[in-house]
């Protein structure tokens, strides 16, 4: 088990593995997102209360889910790098941050567009919306902090620390709808009991969730390769790899 763990620490291994995984992640993401969008927009029945406005869920929920998943990935990678001094962890954290920030923005804007017809307002200082906005600021903070130091190693450590501290916001975002009174609806898919959605609406949503996760995997691998190259460009293996 530890051999596998330490192989992960090897930049050339990570670089090659990421290159091999990228097309597979992209292929699965294209198929599942394509299916989810077509089924969700054209064939799923309208909601009995929200009508066709509910179809925003097919991009809103996967984006919101991904915003939390990317943050957790970033914080975990930062923790691995700090605790075990595995430098690839910093590269993973740096690669995950802009992807997570972009999907947090999508979750906020699509949530706002969904809120206007349902709640009568684009924005309310609701616990779920506010904690998701804090998540976006945490992403911006982590990205900025990494670039704020002349010494990249110090920037990496500082960004990893902020990422780890900020991970406390992840359960707050998730459970905010249960802990406080909220305009936002409660969980519909990730319930311990039976999901509250009809299967004709649920399947495209699950496909979109899975597709967005695979998309994250693909883009993370691409960015990770760039990060590894940037950090290792003086090493022999990079010189061999980039030889024209």
């Amino acid at each position: 088990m530890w051999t596998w763990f330490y192989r992960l620490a090897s930049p050339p291994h990570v670089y090659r593995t990421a290159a091999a995984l990228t097309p597979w992640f992209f292929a699965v993401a294209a198929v599942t997102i394509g299916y989810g969008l077509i089924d969700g927009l054209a064939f799923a029945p309208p909601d009995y209360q929200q009508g066709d406005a509910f179809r925003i869920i097919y991009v809103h929920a996967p984006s919101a889910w991904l915003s939390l998943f990317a943050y957790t990935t970033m914080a975990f990678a930062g923790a691995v790098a700090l605790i075990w001094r595995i430098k690839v962890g910093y590269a993973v954290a740096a690669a995950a941050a802009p992807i997570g920030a972009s999907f947090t923005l999508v979750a906020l804007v699509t949530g706002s567009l969904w809120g206007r017809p349902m709640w009568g307002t684009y924005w309310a200082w609701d616990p779920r919306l506010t904690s998701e906005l804090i998540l976006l600021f945490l992403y911006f903070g982590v990205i900025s902090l990494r670039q704020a130091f002349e010494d990249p190693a110090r920037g990496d450590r500082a960004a990893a620390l902020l990422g780890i501290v900020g991970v406390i916001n992840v359960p707050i975002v998730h459970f905010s709808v249960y802990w406080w009174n909220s305009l936002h609806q409660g969980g519909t898919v990730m319930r311990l009991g039976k999901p509250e959605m009809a299967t004709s609406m649920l399947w495209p949503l699950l496909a979109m969730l899975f597709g967005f996760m695979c998309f994250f995997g693909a883009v993370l691998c691409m960015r990770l390769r760039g990060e590894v190259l940037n950090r290792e460009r003086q090493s022999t293996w990079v010189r061999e790899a980039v030889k024209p």
Partner: protein
Amino acid sequence: MGGYARFVWPSIGLALGVLIWNVWAARRHHAQALVRARRALAMARSEES
């Protein structure tokens, strides 16, 4: 879209736009890293010779 088209389609468009931006940005990030690595290699070679 039952009167909700002005909310649904911009949401879908934004999400697809961000998907495309992510692919473009990741490709660009990797391409720039490759250029930097090749430049470093060329500099090292010129210093050796």
